[in-house]
């Protein structure tokens, strides 16, 4: 009796997680950049690292509503772990070192999550900022280990998977970064489209009701914060590996702020925001810095102010029309159009 409806709903839910043509186009373009933009691989690598970092922030900010001004804590921690592993020859194979760095950042994320998840947004802003500043100062003080303010010198890496040595033009580094980004993106896409991911969106919207239907709100937040810390740690490790250097700057407030900017430019809560935002942010930074090396932050700031004004009530909302367009022309839209009800028509 209810079987047709069950099937219809199952099809509807499946359609919503199906790959959209624009998504495929995005990744094909990324693939093409390997062959077509060979002289841009250095900046593309920077973009890929920032994109992975922004993806990490999107998991907590966009999907779970945890606002952070100190996400560089985990980025920097992963960066230093990767640097130390390579320098002391503990793990020289980059992929394995990346995994170890991500796990180390996850442990740090898990431990600090209990501090961060207390209190309201403002408290979280301050605590996250504090955690990143504390870590920066610890790295500064442990100069016998980290090189202090001079940074960690002598990071030497083995070839990726023992096969592909890093080259001076950065081709291997870019392909490696892009593959890491893609794999991490696939995992994130799976996570946000899972029941766990849906529960994150619910508790972001209404934690009171989420707990009233049996969702352990704090447990879920700890889990996603830990995952996001691992993502940030991998991004930081990737930076260390592709530049063969790491300095205190990885913990800086500017790094936390940059990733927030990149994510806001791209829009939160649909995974591609961090990626698109990172491309725009880096290109803008690169272009403006060429024009006026001293004042590029002025222009970035101006763009941000304009974005937020366009978005009006919430800074995350300015991409909504674009996303609406996505929904209309993709397979998700197709399903709604052929269904018995056509809710897309009377959506505001």
């Amino acid at each position: 009796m209810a079987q047709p409806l069950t099937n219809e709903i199952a099809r509807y839910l499946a359609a919503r997680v199906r790959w959209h043509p624009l998504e495929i186009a995005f990744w094909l373009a990324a693939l093409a950049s390997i062959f077509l933009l060979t002289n841009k691989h250095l900046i593309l690598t920077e973009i890929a690292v920032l994109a992975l970092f922004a993806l990490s922030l999107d998991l907590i900010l966009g999907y779970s509503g945890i606002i952070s001004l100190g996400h560089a804590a985990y980025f920097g921690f992963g960066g230093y772990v990767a640097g130390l592993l390579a320098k002391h020859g503990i793990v020289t194979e980059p992929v394995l070192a990346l995994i170890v760095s991500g796990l180390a950042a996850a442990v740090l994320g898990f431990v600090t999550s209990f501090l961060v998840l207390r209190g309201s947004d403002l408290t979280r802003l301050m605590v996250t900022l504090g955690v990143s500043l504390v870590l920066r100062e610890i790295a500064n003080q442990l100069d016998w280990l980290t090189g202090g303010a001079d940074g960690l010198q002598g990071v030497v890496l083995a070839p990726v998977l023992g096969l592909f040595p890093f080259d001076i033009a950065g081709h291997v580094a870019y392909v490696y970064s892009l593959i890491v980004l893609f794999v991490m993106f696939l995992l994130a896409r799976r996570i946000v489209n899972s029941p766990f991911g849906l529960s994150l969106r619910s508790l972001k919207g209404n934690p009171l009701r989420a707990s009233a239907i049996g969702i352990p709100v704090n447990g879920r937040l700890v889990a996603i914060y830990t995952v996001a810390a691992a993502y940030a740690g991998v991004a930081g490790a990737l930076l260390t590996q592709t530049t063969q250097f790491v300095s205190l700057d990885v913990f800086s407030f500017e790094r936390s702020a940059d990733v927030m900017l990149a994510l806001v430019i791209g829009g939160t809560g649909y995974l591609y925001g961090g990626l698109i935002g990172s491309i725009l942010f880096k290109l803008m930074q690169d272009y403006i810095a060429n024009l006026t090396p001293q004042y590029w932050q002025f222009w970035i700031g101006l763009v941000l102010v304009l974005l937020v004004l366009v978005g009006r009530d919430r800074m995350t909302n300015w991409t909504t029309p674009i996303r609406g367009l996505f929904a209309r022309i993709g397979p998700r839209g197709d399903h709604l159009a052929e269904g018995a009800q056509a809710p897309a028509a009377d959506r505001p």
Partner: protein
Amino acid sequence: MAPVLETVGLVKRFGGIAATNDVSLRIEKGARHALIGPNGAGKTTIINLLTGILRPTSGKILLDNEDITAIEPHQRVHRGIARTFQINQLFGELTPIETIGLAVSERMGTGRHWWRLVGRKPEVIDDVVALIEQFRLTDVMYHPTAILPYGKQRLLEIAVAIACRPRVLLLDEPAAGVPDAERHEILATVEALPKDVTVLLIEHDMDIVFSFADHISVLVNGALFTEGKPDEVARDPRVKAVYLGEAIDV
């Protein structure tokens, strides 16, 4: 008969005010128990204490004779207590399918699965479909909750509580703010609840209370004033004075 849910000397103070003052309630298994009282009597506070949103200043809450006073709200849901809210507490961006699906997966213990896509468990969808049909939400099931008509949101509010398959259901003014035309629909769904589900109802509408309840507790100024069968409570001149009188006069 053993009570399924019981409070013992429950007290909740906000500063100097005792919103709940030494309340000892016994809710029998399968009861249709109504909690009534004038505005500000502390009815919703009791629901918040029972569900764990508020922690009592003193006193105990027992579910099947087990002390649940200290456990978290979400754990109480897993033990079988679900509630609706007087003011809708829903997920504006999510559709009714997703909202009910969340509650069902959480009950089945699959809500934390991160490796599986939403919608891949037929048993979850079957439960969602049953509730969507029972609560007549089929025509709006793909819409974000925020744009649903108020009456539909109210139905979803109850549906998502039922999706937890509670043994004890706490209804905080289920028909509040619903136009008369849609009111009977909500009351019909409440009346159609299985008899083994124990219901604690907070309601201002005396017609609803007296047609629905088999036991009534009257709360005044945070304290239990009197309780009994509906006809006893209705006959009690003191209840008329503090509450029914007020309601009837209006």
